[in-house]
């Protein structure tokens, strides 16, 4: 067990009365603070805070940084305005996905990549080709504030600034220099390690009236899955060999994150990998998670389940799947268990919880045949 602790660890220790911990990227993190389901539901009724500091953050600056980000990622980061971000993939030379993350442009010549899984050697050595200075931002803290009352809590805490969707704004918060962003499920507060506990305390104090709760990583995974966030390392295993052919964006249904008009590393392999596919959601009849396996329709294989987990809000198993060709409407099967194909996200965060049927209505048409 690693001894790495995030800047918020001291507060997580106080709150984690069940002593339920888990390890991610060598950081010791609260798995839950009592009940995973309650934490996941609390994010839909009120607001929760979650420690995201364990996520890998790589900073790229100087040199030909624009040329680097333009080449390294499947969407053109060089075209970003400062303060905005892009959901990107990076591929190996054969066109297989090495990772998925969010690329943020902090300044004209500075970018930060956030990803749940690090790929330091690959991206840092690529950055060196362009004379770009690359470094880890491991010491800083990121605290996510998620839920319908998140905005009110920020106001109660004295933060009126509102970053644009997928953007961030630096601000001074009663003497603390922080950055507020809206990159994922809600708001994120970025702060240096020394300020981390103050940020936690101020937020929890402001959130007391809103029943603000800390949530562990298990609930966070559920919320991300419900929101259709298909993450590297958790939901799929990325390529680690520089020339390995799998998994391609097509195999993961992530072609929407690839800009075909843009020139990026591995593009030739990507284009040769076949037709585009799309990631879709699966509502499952089973009671336990499925391992990755084939989806069938009337006995014919039509795609694959990539990952699945239980959703307390939808009160059923949900999963990610990809389908080859046009997909059938209605029921499909996985290991003789019925599944229903729906669009993503299953349940956008910020909305009040809906019944599963309503969720399906919200994504009406997703189960209809479509060409890929």
């Amino acid at each position, binding site marked *: 067990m690693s001894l790495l602790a995030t800047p918020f660890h001291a507060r997580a220790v106080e709150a984690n009365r069940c002593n339920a911990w888990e390890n991610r990227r060598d950081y010791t993190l609260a798995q839950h603070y009592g009940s995973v389901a309650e934490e996941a539901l609390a994010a839909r009724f009120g607001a929760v805070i979650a420690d995201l500091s364990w996520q890998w953050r790589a900073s790229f600056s100087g040199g030909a940084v624009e*040329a680097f980000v333009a080449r390294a990622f499947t969407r053109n980061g060089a075209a970003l305005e400062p303060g905005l971000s892009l959901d990107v993939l990076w591929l*190996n*030379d054969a066109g297989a996905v090495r990772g998925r993350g969010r690329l943020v442009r902090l300044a004209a010549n500075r970018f930060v990549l956030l990803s749940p899984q690090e790929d330091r050697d690959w991206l840092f*050595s690529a950055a060196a*080709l362009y004379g770009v200075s690359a470094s880890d931002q491991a010491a800083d803290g990121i605290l996510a504030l998620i839920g319908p009352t998140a905005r009110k809590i920020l106001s109660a805490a004295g933060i009126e600034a509102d970053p644009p969707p997928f953007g961030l704004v630096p601000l001074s918060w009663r003497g603390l220099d922080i950055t507020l962003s809206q990159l994922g499920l809600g708001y994120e507060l970025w702060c240096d390690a020394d300020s981390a506990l103050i940020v936690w305390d101020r937020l929890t104090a402001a959130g007391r009236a809103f029943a603000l709760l800390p949530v562990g990583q298990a609930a966070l995974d559920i919320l991300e899955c419900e929101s259709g966030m298909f993450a590297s390392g958790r939901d799929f295993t990325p390529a680690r*060999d520089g020339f390995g052919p799998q998994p391609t964006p097509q195999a993961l249904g992530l072609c929407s994150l690839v800009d075909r008009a843009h020139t990026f590393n591995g*593009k030739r392999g990507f284009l040769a990998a076949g037709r585009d596919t799309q990631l879709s959601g699966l509502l499952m009849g089973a009671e336990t998670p499925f391992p990755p396996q084939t989806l069938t329709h009337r006995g014919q294989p039509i795609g694959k389940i990539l990952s699945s987990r239980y959703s307390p809000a939808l009160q059923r198993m949900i999963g990610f799947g990809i389908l080859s060709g046009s997909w059938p409407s209605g029921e499909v099967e996985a290991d003789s268990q019925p599944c229903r194909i729906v669009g993503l996200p299953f349940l956008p965060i910020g909305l009040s919880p809906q019944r599963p049927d309503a969720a399906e209505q919200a994504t009406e048409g997703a189960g209809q045949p479509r060409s890929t």
Partner: protein
Amino acid sequence: MSGPVVVIGAGLSGLVAATYLARAGHAVTLVEKAAEPGGMCANRVPISHFAVPPGPHLFTALDPKVIKELGLNLSFVSRDLPLIGLRAEGPPLVLPRDVHEARRSLAPLSERDSMRFATFRREHFAFARAMRTLWWEEGALSDEHARAELRRMQVTSATAWLDGAFESESLLAAFAFDVLAFSPSAAGSALLFTWRAAQEMCGLQGAVAMPAGGPSQLIDAVVKTAEAAGVTLRLEAPVRALDTDGESVRGVTLASGEALPAAAVLSSLSRRQTLIDFLPPGTAGFATARGLEKPQSCGEAKVLLTLSALPKAFEQPGRYVLAEKLETAASAYAAARSGDIPADLALEIVALPTGATPPILLSIVVRPVSIEPIGGWKDQATRLVQAVLHRLELHIPQFTALVAGLAFVPPKHRDPFCIAAMVSPWRARIETPLKGLYLCGEAAEPVPCLSGRAARIAAAIVAADLQEAKG
């Protein structure tokens, strides 16, 4: 006719590729940075009153198809040269193509090796013959026995393979020379013996041979053929960069600033020079750039000596190997890798008549040596030459008294050698991550060598791709 084609480097490979493409009807421009064609075969190392090539002193892998199809009409000073292992005591070990003669030479050293040699040679050459479908043309191994043997060889080191085959130290040391430019203890390095056997068994190419007049005569013959085919040869025209749109190559820009647009560019230079030095960073792919970051750490140097007379020890035409023991090969390689000059250097020696004064040229390939030794070759060349002379003096008393002149050729930078690439398809070695850019020289060969085969096959691939693009 499709768009113009540019070939970079007027060495043997570049000339061969350009000739084939010109014959296929393409407008081919061959650009060369030097003032004369030939590359490693050009006479540009001065020694005594003449100049000799820095490259191979023998051809061991010339493609018979190239010789025949280009009508080179080569005559050889000598061909099918035997491998002769010089021994500290006793007569040398002579291993000609005639297996009975080889057995007779082996018998005094080891009765067991002598008994086994014929079987070993038959079995190994049968496997090497099967491998020729992979190495000589774009084919596949059809024989299950050969596929099983290939799987075994791919995980067997050269030292382990030799050790299991023979017991005579002289035989093991003589054979080991062929793998010492690479790591002899690396998994799969045993395949290098098979590669060598696949080349040597073909008499048509003059296996282990020297063309009359030396390597430069071969170049002269190919230059004539290229010019007759309509190749435009531009000398003193170094390439500054490849022109690219990020995904495909559109031509080359010369150091003079002149742009040469091209539908296809073939490079006979190393993979690193082609994909890293001539392209904007990252264009060839991040993994490719990482793989080429560090060149091959060890290679071979060449020591050239002119002699006033031919020592008796070298009177028999042959490829002489002077090496210690197989056991020291791995440690010598490790020493070279760390930048030292190994104590146990292995030498391959060929004696050639100069037709002038001094009358004999002794060409010595020294393995393994560091590509960049501690202190650099400026400091270490003298040490290495002294070590070589010392070794020869031990075997041939008064040898140094015969030396009239000497020259040293440091090892050239090579791409990192990958055993796995030995069995990958030709197209995988010839194509590059950029559309329209191909390799046709040593970098595209299964094992770095001067054969012309990669150039011939690359020309065929390029012609087919251009035809497809046109269609």
